[in-house]
């Protein structure tokens, strides 16, 4: 077996263990800066990935008896997660001040969660799917409740634990049913037999249960109930990683299960996916309107974005799948930019209310500009990444409409969602610039790495909004391994 196939995972694992060990010898004061070392390590792995790992278009390399697949799709998501974790670590260093103990563990756990995401992007077997999901979820139980002194943080951890455990139960039960019926766990083998099982109720029941487990990861209705509370209670970097990395892992697994393992069955599920997507969009956007807590607002907005991403899955086409990847790419820069700003602002003011953004325009033009651009991009207005993403998703949905008029309905629900979302995203922008009274006008000076990260986010949003060609080509290439 070629160990180069597993190089991402092995390197990240080694880095995580190193961080844990370094904690033993480093003096207390320096531990905080371990985050920079970890981030530098991830940057190195990312560089290595771009230089050394190549996958020919359409080619799939397998390891562990086809359990683990390395193809363009996996590589896309591996680099995506690495980039996300890199920025989350930079953010955590800023955040570490407010953590009394266990800073290094926080970094290490973030790296282990990343390891889970890397494995998830290569999962080609229900066993690996389950293991990687658990690795992600269990580390997040700890990460979410890391603020041990805060009730809300503990509450977030417990809620995530209970609902996470429930959804794990669903997934395992579903896998058991599928395995019991077919005797197969591998996606490729399953694909060979699944066409004959389209009418088998037990098999479909098993698949629905597995979907329920994945729906929990991506926070789609009806498994969204945990998201606002956990987003609100968890430390900001955890929330950011949950919103970007964990959601992306859920989507890559969803793509693989639906379009590699059981494509014939998924193509019958158009209506189900349309309904799920529409309800998720409306639920997320409508519930976000009254929110005053910024993290909670982003929690609901992340439900809405899960709905938009489901548009691409519901389209059941290559265009839809590649649009999902594109949208996630834009979402990465947008959301991490927004959370980085929140992390800095909330460290200064101990409140998470929207009003705490008052006067940000004067306190730090860079932070204000980043948050504004992030909101505009999330709302899906040009020339930022969010617009092109939504454009591609809408296009893929409307392309299916002549065959199934329900897709027109879905497109209009998506548009209604965009319009509703303008209200609360612009509410955030309004709080930044328009607030009458600003309690605190002390300038905020972001550190150099954070400034660099913010500039990278801004550049990413603009690049993907103005020059979509490169990433569109890449995503179209990458989804060729799917059906």
């Amino acid at each position, binding site marked *: 077996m070629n160990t180069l196939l597993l190089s991402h995972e092995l390197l990240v694992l080694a880095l995580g263990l190193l961080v844990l060990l370094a904690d033993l010898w480093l003096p207390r004061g320096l531990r905080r800066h371990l985050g920079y070392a970890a981030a530098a390590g991830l940057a190195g792995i990312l560089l290595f990935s771009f230089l050394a790992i190549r996958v020919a278009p359409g080619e799939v390399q397998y390891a562990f008896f086809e359990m683990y697949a390395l193809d363009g799709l996996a590589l896309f998501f591996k680099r995506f997660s690495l980039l996300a974790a890199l920025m989350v670590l930079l953010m955590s260093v800023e955040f570490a001040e407010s953590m009394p103990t266990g800073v290094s563990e926080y970094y290490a756990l973030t790296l282990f969660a990343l390891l889970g995401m890397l494995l998830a992007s290569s999962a080609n077997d229900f066993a690996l799917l389950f293991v990687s999901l658990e690795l992600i979820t269990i580390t997040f139980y700890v990460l979410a409740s890391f603020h041990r002194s805060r009730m809300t943080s503990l509450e977030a951890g417990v809620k995530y634990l209970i609902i996470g455990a429930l959804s794990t139960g669903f997934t395992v039960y579903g896998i058991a049913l599928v395995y019991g019926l077919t005797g197969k766990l591998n996606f490729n083998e399953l694909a060979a037999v699944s066409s004959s099982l389209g009418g088998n109720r037990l098999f479909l029941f098993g698949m629905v249960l597995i979907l329920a487990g994945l729906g929990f990861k991506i926070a789609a209705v009806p498994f969204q109930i945990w998201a606002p509370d956990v987003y609100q209670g968890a430390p900001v970097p955890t929330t950011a990683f949950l919103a970007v990395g964990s959601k992306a892992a859920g989507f890559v697994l969803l793509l693989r299960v639906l379009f590699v393992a059981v494509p014939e069955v998924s193509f019958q599920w158009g209506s189900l996916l349309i309904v799920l997507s529409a309800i998720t969009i409306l639920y997320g956007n409508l519930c976000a309107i009254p929110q005053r807590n910024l993290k909670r607002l982003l929690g609901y907005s992340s439900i809405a974005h899960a709905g938009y991403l489901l548009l691409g899955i519901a389209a059941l086409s290559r265009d839809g799948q590649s649009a999902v990847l594109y949208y996630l790419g834009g979402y990465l820069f947008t959301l991490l930019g927004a959370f980085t700003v929140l992390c800095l602002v909330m460290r200064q003011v101990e409140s998470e209310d929207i009003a705490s953004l008052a006067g940000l325009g004067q306190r730090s033009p860079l932070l204000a500009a980043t948050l504004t651009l992030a909101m*505009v991009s999330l709302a899906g*207005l*040009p*020339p930022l990444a969010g*617009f092109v993403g939504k*454009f591609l998703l*809408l*296009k893929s949905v*409307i*392309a299916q*409409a*002549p065959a199934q008029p329900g897709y*027109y309905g879905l*497109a*209009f629900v998506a*548009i209604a969602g*965009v*319009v509703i979302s*303008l*209200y609360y995203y*612009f509410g955030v*922008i*309004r709080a930044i*610039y*328009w607030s009458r009274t600003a309690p605190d006008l002390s300038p905020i000076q972001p550190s150099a790495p954070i400034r660099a990260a913010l500039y990278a986010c801004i550049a990413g949003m603009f690049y993907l909004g103005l*020059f*979509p*060609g490169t990433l*569109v*080509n890449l995503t*179209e290439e990458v989804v060729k391994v799917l059906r």
Partner: protein
Amino acid sequence: MSPLTYILGWPFLAALALVFIPRNYRVVIRAIAVAATFLSAVLALKMFAQFAGAPAGASGYRFEQVVPWVKALGISYYVGVDGINAGLVLMAAIVAFAAACASWDVQHREKEFYILLLVMAGGILGAFASLDLFFFYIFHEFALVPTFLMIGLWGRGEQKNYATFQITLYLTVGSLIVLVGLIALYLQSGLGTFSIPALVAHFRQNPMPLGAQQFIFPLLLFGFGILVSLWPFHSWAPPGYGAAPSATAMLHAGALKKFGLYGLIRIALPIMPEAAREWMPVLAWLCLGNLLYCGWVAMKQRDFNWLVGYSSVAHMGFVFLGIATLTPLGLTGAVLVMVAHGFLAALTFGLNGYIHRQTGTLEMAQLGGLLRRLPFIGAALMMAAFAGCGLPGFANFAGEITVFFGAWKVYPVVTVLACWGALIVGAVYMLRAVRVVMHGPLPERWAEVPDAPHFWRKLPFLALLAGLLVFGCFPRLLTDRIQAGLASVLPAPPIALTEAIEPVNSTAPLAGPTSFEPERPMVPAGMTVRE
């Protein structure tokens, strides 16, 4: 490189340059903004002058340039003009220059203001020059988002926040509906290209199925309609313009709003002629809502800015009526009114902004006798008011009367009612406003109000007035070009100028080019006398 790329590129380039200029260099910032828009305006003028001599491309457009952008989706940067948008590009460039000149009253966060202003100007010019659906849409959004931000940040009045939210929601709904329509159109063709000439040519060869037309056309009609404040979707406009800083109102009411009308003419009519014929009578009656209802509401206004806002909504009715005729004459008039109203709206909002800046109010009850203090501004405002009532000599007259001539045969009842809107209602509110604001006793508190002190303050208004008068006296400068351009828009059954058509019952198949002769001046004789 096409001159159009320079015309729309200078504002964007200047906006980019401003990012790197420290905010305390106020004079430099302002000078760059004015210089960039001036360059655009001069280049647009040159483009317009050279238009007739320029070689036309395969699909009849001049000054074309194509740069592939996203090959996978068939998106390319594609600009070009024909007779329809040449005038619009010129108008938009002059309005942008005037708006940049008139922004001297912005006193805080100038850097951001001018960046947004330049992006907006570039977006407007880009939207009018683009022949690629994707860029057409995205340039419009480039212009739209700064509009919201400018109203929110630099707006005035009590209702600023409410107006910002309202205009944002309305216009976003409109543009998203348009987006769905445009995507559906793109997918319907199956060509995998966003190029407008290619799509038009394709659908001319293979007409779109009627079912698809009946679905897509209303999307475009009402999506664009919301953007142009078609009654009953107009309620965002008066409060929005009332709250907007004057440069934003000038650019939006003058130039950006014409985007929807242009989209209808350029995209919806040629690609979906059958559905257009079914929907046009509806549009004709809706346009009466603009002309009569909004005109009536304008008469009731006490705030001068709101009055002008309603009057600008009302004027859109003429354009809709012209489009609804689906005749060359009516459409020529519609495009003429679009250009004329662009100058007019920018002029009135600019003058309003000046008065507001000097007096701090536009409540008509508090103003009066200002002509004595403001000879230049007052005279310009009176000319604008006359242009607004449709006095001959101004471009509006030429456009409106052409629309009426075109509409008379098709919708006689609507035309009679519309004439009332134009002549009586318009004259009542405009003249009343001029009387109240400019004449009568001068209240004590305005005794020291200063007139435009030097040439630079007067320049934007002079440029806009020049546009109104030149195209008013020589409408053939525009009409000749427009008529040539309309050949690609109206593939409909031969429509002679004097023939009545029955839009509802007409089910005749698409056939041949239109039968009017380009040589024959279509403007009524009375109008060309001035040449």
